[in-house]
């Protein structure tokens, strides 16, 4: 499968995506505008809390083309963060107390300066998260030592595995992905990742493989741990459940399968004001491959930069100016505020 971008699909135009998302609103407000729900919850305008996480999207290049990918990443995407932009991020990071740097993509490891970046962040003493798609570890011999490299720099590995069954995983992420993911998990386990007491953290990410919301994070974690241990001898630390947001290739799936309206209604009906108060954009700054600043990775993929007068590019980074901004919201934000909430760290509301 090619990316929307390579197929010249209308959905590759983020303006088109935003029109789809706001259409129901325009046609008589059948779906309540998200801003209205936030206002009712006393959260409008949505303001940042303390900046805890800098999330760097180091490129859209990926060895996989998952059907739900909100980045529209794939082997045909060439956008990649340069070392110069990385240096700007590091300079900004050094001037702050930001605790966590969250590296994402695409497959972040495919950026030629990825290892250099990890070494630099590690030298600054910040916690590093790498959002590893697992299969990259076994995709090419040059990546086989990634588990050791991660371990050397104290990286917390967060990896997508949609399901403990091969069929459900492959349906979302491509034929053979489950088997390759299991091989990669074994390599991570072999250097201590996910093993209790090792201090090497391996979390798995569960995205529903279809037009439904994630169930209880605790219950799914229990099932995943039991099945992966029993059937594959694999261990991990935590399972993070993430709701699929109705953008990019998941939006394509929703529209093509006829599930768009019912899925949106499901999200709207499940709006949770407690989850809305805990959204990750309040404590995260998202930086695009070209250094542009966004409130979250989803806004980034919809070309919705941080609101002016906050700085728009990492070269102009100012924590004070950014902390005064109003976070940009839209109908897609229902995805992060439904049910137990959804963030890059999983559910945001305790069950």
């Amino acid at each position, binding site marked *: 499968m090619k990316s929307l971008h390579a197929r010249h699909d209308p959905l590759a135009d983020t303006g088109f995506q935003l029109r789809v998302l706001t259409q129901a609103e325009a046609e008589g407000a059948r779906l309540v505008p998200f801003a209205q729900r936030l206002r009712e919850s006393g959260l409008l305008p949505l303001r940042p809390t303390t900046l805890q996480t800098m999330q760097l999207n180091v490129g859209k290049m990926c060895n996989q083309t998952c059907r739900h990918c909100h980045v529209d990443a794939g082997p045909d995407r060439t956008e990649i963060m340069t070392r110069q932009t990385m240096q700007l991020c590091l300079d900004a990071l050094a001037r702050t107390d930001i605790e966590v740097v969250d590296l994402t993509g695409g497959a972040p490891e495919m950026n030629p300066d990825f290892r250099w970046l990890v070494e630099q962040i590690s030298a600054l003493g910040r916690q590093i998260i790498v959002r590893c798609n697992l299969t990259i570890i076994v995709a090419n011999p040059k990546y086989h030592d990634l588990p050791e490299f991660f371990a050397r720099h104290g990286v917390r590995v967060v990896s997508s595995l949609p399901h403990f069954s091969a069929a459900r995983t492959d349906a979302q992420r491509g034929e053979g992905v489950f088997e390759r993911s299991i091989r990669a998990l074994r390599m991570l386990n072999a250097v201590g990742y996910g093993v209790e007491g090792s201090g090497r953290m391996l979390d798995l990410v569960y995205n*529903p493989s279809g037009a439904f919301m994630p*169930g209880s994070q605790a*219950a*799914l974690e229990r*099932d995943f741990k039991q099945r992966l241990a029993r059937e594959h001898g694999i261990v991990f630390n935590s399972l993070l459940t993430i709701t699929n947001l109705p953008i990019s290739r998941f939006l394509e799936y929703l529209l093509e399968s006829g599930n768009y309206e019912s899925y949106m209604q499901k999200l709207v009906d499940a709006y949770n004001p407690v989850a809305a108060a805990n959204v990750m954009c309040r404590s995260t700054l998202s930086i695009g491959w070209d250094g542009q600043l966004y409130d979250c990775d989803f806004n980034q993929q919809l070309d919705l930069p941080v609101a002016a007068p906050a700085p728009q590019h990492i070269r102009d980074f100012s924590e004070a100016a950014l902390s005064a901004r109003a976070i940009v919201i839209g109908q897609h934000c229902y995805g992060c505020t439904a049910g137990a909430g959804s963030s890059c760290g999983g559910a945001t509301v305790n069950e």
Partner: protein
Amino acid sequence: MEKATYYNPADLAKFGNITEWQSEMGNKFFAYYAEVFKDGALTEREKSLIALAVAHAVQCPYCIDAYTTDSLQKGADEAQMMEAVHVAAAIKGGAALVHGVQMMNKAKELAM
């Protein structure tokens, strides 16, 4: 206009409205219902699969829609869901067949 079927999928979302005409009993039913499906000696996922099987046994299209979605949400896969349907089929089939013993008893009683 005449409906094509007695069942309308949109009616599932109106299930809660049954409390309008008998709120006390309706509310008690929903409170009980919520309690039944909580994690207990059985997990929520196991209860959802039981509900899916029962939905097929009682042939309730609303319940089949609801518990297919719910089973997926709770992490069940297609193999588990189809096995649940087979459990329902086995019990329904078995229930019909076991009455064959009654038929045989009666036939033996009547026949020479």
